[in-house]
């Protein structure tokens, strides 16, 4: 089981699904951020799995995953700082209250 591609894909799929669900349903911005991390991680797992079982070039997938980790870190910093600013302005990080762009 641990040697088949399907298992990895199932895991990453589940993670991604949980991420998307959280992303759409959480009202807390931090929660949304965590969900995004989950989606990113699901993508990383996919990359690694395909790298291991399919790709001829063993280095490429790992490089991309490293890139994703870096990207996630940068994204987390940015997002957290936005959340911080939002919190200062609204004393809340509930996304439902941040709807000033409503038409």
């Amino acid at each position: 089981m641990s040697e088949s591609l399907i298992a990895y894909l199932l895991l990453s799929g589940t993670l991604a699904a949980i991420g998307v669900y959280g992303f759409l349903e959480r009202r807390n911005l931090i929660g949304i951020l965590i969900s995004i991390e989950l989606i990113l991680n699901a993508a990383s797992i996919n990359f690694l799995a395909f790298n291991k079982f399919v790709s001829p070039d063993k280095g490429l997938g790992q490089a991309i995953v490293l890139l994703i980790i870096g990207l996630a870190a940068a994204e987390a910093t940015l997002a957290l700082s936005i959340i911080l600013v939002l919190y200062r302005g609204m004393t809340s990080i509930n996304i439902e209250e941040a709807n000033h762009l409503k038409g």
Partner: protein
Amino acid sequence: MELFLIFTIVGSPLIAFLMIALLPHRLKRIAPLLSISFIFLSFLSSLLFFLKHPQIQETPFEVQWTWLQANRNLSFNVGFLMDRLNLLMLFVVSLVSFFVQVFSVAYMADEGRGQSRYFAFLSLFSFAMINLVASNNLLQTFIFWELVGLASYLLIGFWYQKPSATEASRKAFVVTRLGDLGFYLAVALLTLHLGNLNFSALNSPEAIQSLSGGMITLVTLLIFTGVMGKSAQFPLHIWLPDAMEGPTPVSALIHSATMVAAGVFLTARNYALFSASSISMETILIFGTLTAFVGATLATIQNDIKKILAYSTISQLGMMMMALGAGSFEAGMFHLTTHAFFKSLLFLASGALIHHFHTNDIWEMAQKGSRSQVLTLLVIAVGGLSLAGIFPFAGFWSKDLILEALEHKPVFHAAALLVSFFTSYYVFRLLFILYFRSETPHAHEEHHESSLLTFCMNFPLISLAVGSLIVGFMGTDLMHHKLLKFISPEAEGKLSIELMMTGTGIAVLGLAVAYWNYLKRKIQPPITATGFRRVLEKKYFMDDLFEKVFGRMVLAFSAFLNWFDKQMVNGKMVNGTAWSTLRLGALLTKVQSGELQDYLMIVFVIASAVIYFLVK
């Protein structure tokens, strides 16, 4: 030399107009002098022209230049034609203008700064009228026809502070323009079908042959609508009585002697064309008769001296048209000439009375002692007897000529006799009231005007009185039909004794009735309105018809269009489009909930769908 003379004739009033208009303020006082001398110059030049070319009828003098090139084949000309017909009109116009302008110096003496404007407008009028008469083609006639209308408009509304005067000027302008609608269309049609609007070409046998009969009738009737407007023919006569709001000398010049005769002149000018259509001739005859009758009857009940004369003018213009319609072109023109003299005389004399008594009402004049104005009453008597057709005054000869022309049309002949009865009645009514019903004047009210002004007032009156005596004889056997032969060499001008007797008899009958009513029964001004009199007071409902029915219909339609424009085109269509765009926008903004996750959901769903379809 001829050219120079013609330019002097037609151009000098224009020079006067321009000079007066451009005079600096300090020099405005000389405006009357300029105006009078230039119109006299014009008269002298036309006289000189005639003396140089006594045989002008055989070889009319014509010059022309291109004015406007419509396309390769079609151009319009300006030009002048000199033949007997318009030389006669030139004499009449410039002479009457001259007398009226001299009279105006006295009449408008109190006007102050307005005087220069007045004389400028008079010069403009003379310019337009002389050019109308002298032009050699229909379009140029139309152009000056309109300018004459403009001058009339400006002069009727001369006292523009008075709302009634401005109303009257508007009415005159709009009603005549309504008539000119037909004239305009006729010009366009003739341009299309003939391409040459010169009178000589229009009235040539070839032109008449080349046009179909229906087209000739159509065109002549269209021209006749213009004539109806300008010459105050029924039912477009309604503007003329109102036009009496203008200064009295203006009424004398424009609304009796010259401009209103332009229609008669135009018909005479195109007589060959008109004669080619019997329907048109009949129409002219019928409308002429109606006009003559309506004018004469309405004149019998007026108390305003100018209104009496105005309705009398309408009636006399009707008589002229009757003569033309009956086929006697020389009778019409002869009556036009005599009428110009005696009617301008009457108007000027009434102007003298108005100037003196400061009222238009004949009963008030009588109360204030009109009998004291001996000279004025005398000339009114000369003019009035002439108007009534009493032997041997000018109107007698010309009216008899018209009666003779109508001899073979019994109905119209009878109508003409009826008209002369009414004419004689209102003339003697006027004379009786002014003289015999007058109170003794208060002597101390006499105020003396300067001798120059008195001269300016009396000189034209006397000259015109003499003129209107002479001009009648010029059409008779005594003077070998000089005037008639001048108008048309073939004119016979034989007067039958029976006709003369009938005419005089009818006139005396009118005198008798007037005598009975105003000297025996001593009728006082306001008489109870009953029956026919009521109709007369309502002016045959013509004013009401035009103002209340046509006017209101057009205005109501315009109001509807205005509503349509504001509410439908602008409101429903334009603003409606704008509004629905805004509403649609508002509707679409509902999608914009501001909830981040809603947007994400949409993105997710659409992205999934796209991926699904791509992969599948």
